């Protein structure tokens, strides 16, 4: 057979498909250069940088407080968590202690934001698998309730700019207590609905089980973090293992996957919503009296030193490496974004899968381009 092909000059070519930068399932302006053999992915090269705004350079020309709104624009689905990571890094640099109420309010807000972010990720993942928009709308229906609360608190629905160095922007409104408790009850019912609609659906299982397996040692080697690492079976959560703020006072589990396939990544996120609800429930019950609004000077100098602070974001570990030379502005602000490392591992797990599966794996990694390109 090969002789005939050699004689006749028949040849089969690899097809190069440019997936993106505008494509329905690349979650923003990601450009994947795919080499396909039929429909099998032979190689995949991600090209990033289409959303590069040089946030790190901007940070060097702003005072510490002025950079808080820019952190909203990194991972725009987890803005509150970005705010939190940045203000914690600055507080660590300044050696600033905050009162317990501040930490409680921050915990409640950050966990609610994590739920909102995971809901978007579940919805878009189902969308990538071809469940036309229905799970997406269900998830957005629930997210809407969180976003409305945030809107009331800080006036923003996507970019919040809520955390302040030393505190938060405003106190929780008077009815927040009841609102959040109602939401917890509501969301627990809805998690059942997602399980019925998607998690154990036969088609969904056949599309996601054993697809895009990420081995734990590979995940650690690539510095993959967050739900993606936990889905590979590594029980690691910064909130649990190196607690910041008051996370050591709350009881919650760290859900992990067994195989590290796309289904595990989906399930870990779904379970994390439940765990976040637990944290919010405990925090709203135990919130101490006091003042949560920041009383720190708007302009201040940091001592010449450096700090590295990492927090558990919805997508993984967000790190801020702040270097100060004693001036009003940070000398260097490096943002270690989780999606960046989580995307870097993609080529090594999609080789040999077909295009549909590659879309499924990409959806399950849950990247946000704003954070990758910064």
């Amino acid at each position: 057979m090969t002789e005939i092909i050699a004689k006749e000059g028949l040849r089969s070519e690899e097809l190069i498909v440019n997936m993106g930068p505008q494509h329905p399932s690349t979650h923003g302006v990601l450009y994947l250069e795919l080499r396909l053999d039929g429909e099998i992915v032979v190689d995949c090269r991600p090209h990033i940088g289409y959303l590069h705004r040089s946030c790190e350079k901007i940070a060097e020309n702003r005072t510490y407080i002025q950079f808080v709104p820019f952190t909203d624009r990194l991972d725009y689905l987890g803005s509150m968590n970005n705010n939190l990571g940045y203000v914690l890094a600055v507080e660590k640099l300044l050696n600033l202690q905050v009162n317990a109420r501040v930490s409680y309010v921050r915990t409640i807000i950050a966990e609610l934001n994590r739920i909102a972010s995971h809901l978007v990720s579940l919805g878009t993942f189902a969308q990538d698998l071809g469940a036309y928009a229905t799970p997406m709308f269900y998830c957005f229906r629930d997210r809407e309730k969180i976003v409305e609360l945030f809107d009331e608190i800080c006036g923003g629905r996507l970019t919040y700019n809520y955390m302040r160095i030393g505190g938060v922007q405003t106190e929780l409104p008077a009815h927040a207590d009841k609102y959040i408790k109602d939401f917890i009850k509501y969301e627990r019912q809805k998690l059942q609905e997602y399980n019925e609609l998607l998690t154990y659906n036969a088609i969904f299982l056949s599309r996601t089980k054993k697809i895009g397996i990420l081995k734990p040692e590979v995940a650690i080697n690539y510095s993959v973090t967050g739900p993606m690492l936990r889905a590979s079976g590594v029980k690691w959560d910064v909130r649990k293992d190196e607690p910041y703020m008051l996370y050591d006072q709350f009881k919650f589990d760290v859900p992990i996957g067994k195989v590290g396939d796309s289904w595990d990544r989906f399930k870990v996120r779904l379970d994390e919503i439940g765990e976040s609800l637990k944290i919010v429930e405990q925090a709203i019950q135990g919130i101490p009296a006091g003042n949560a609004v920041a009383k720190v000077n708007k302009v201040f100098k940091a001592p010449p030193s450096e700090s590295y602070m990492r927090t558990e974001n919805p997508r993984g570990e967000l790190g801020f490496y702040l270097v100060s030379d004693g001036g009003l502005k940070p000398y260097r602000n490096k943002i270690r974004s989780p999606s960046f490392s989580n995307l870097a591992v993609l080529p090594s797990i999609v080789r040999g899968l077909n295009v549909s599966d590659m879309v499924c794996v990409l959806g399950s990694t849950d990247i946000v381009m704003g954070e990758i390109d910064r």
Partner: protein
Amino acid sequence: MIDPLSVQVRSMVINSSVILGFISISAMFLIWWERKVSAHIQNRLGPMIVGWHGSLQSIADTVKLLLKENIVPAGADKMIWWLAPFFVVVPSVMAFVTIPFARNFVVHDLNVGILFITSITSVCVLGIFMAGWGSNNKYSLLGGMRSAAQIISYEVPLLLSVVVVIMEAGTLSMQGIIQAQEHGWFILKPNLAIAFVIYFISSTAEVNRVPFDIPEAESELGAGYHTEYTGMKFAMFFVAEYTNLFIVSAVAATLFLGGWQGPFLPSVFWFLLKSYGIIFLSMWVRWTLPRVRMDQMMGFAWKFLTPVALLNLLISGWFMLR
């Protein structure tokens, strides 16, 4: 003196114009209805502005599409690219010739009616493949190839399930099949109920709907084979899609649910009720389930559906001979 031939021609012309009118109105209605159904499944309202509950939305969309620029992609194979929409639309319109809308309304009741429908709708795949090839777009090409593989595969179980009905009715004529169901719909018999399930699944794949919408898998291929089409050419693919949906549902209603038969109401009403009922079922499936993968779908057709259909055929034959 009236020439009998001219009477026949005149009645066929009138019937054809009624059918053509029905096709365009039905396609527009189905598009609006699908949008409303999907909206209510998803906690939305859907179109609400144009007309009562957005009922004139499809007309507004058609006007918009008519006015749109016709963009020919650079490097397209012009002839093939230009012909493809017609190859998709014309066969699906032709299939209406033998669909029995009512007791005494069918354009021409061919004695090989069901054979005619299944063979003429198979031509659609040619148009889809031409669209994929002619567009000079890799996504379109992949979509076209997937579509060809899919439609040809699912034709087999579809026809095998239809053969069971033909055996039961003893005729290929659509009206004949309906008359054979005078004392009970075919779906009430166990072997024909299985045939109906096979037919429904295969026909969902035939018209490229979820969970078998692989040729136009949005999250993978953009819009598949009709990515490069704009304006009225795109609308033709769209109309063909919904026309095909109506045809497979109408055929299902005819073959399994007794067609236009039913008490009290006019027969055309029963026919439309049954057809649109099956369409609603298909919409319900579409807005609930995720998509299967290409190889899973092919495996399902060849390794499961075809053997089951063959077995069903065998058992039905045994029942008849007994």
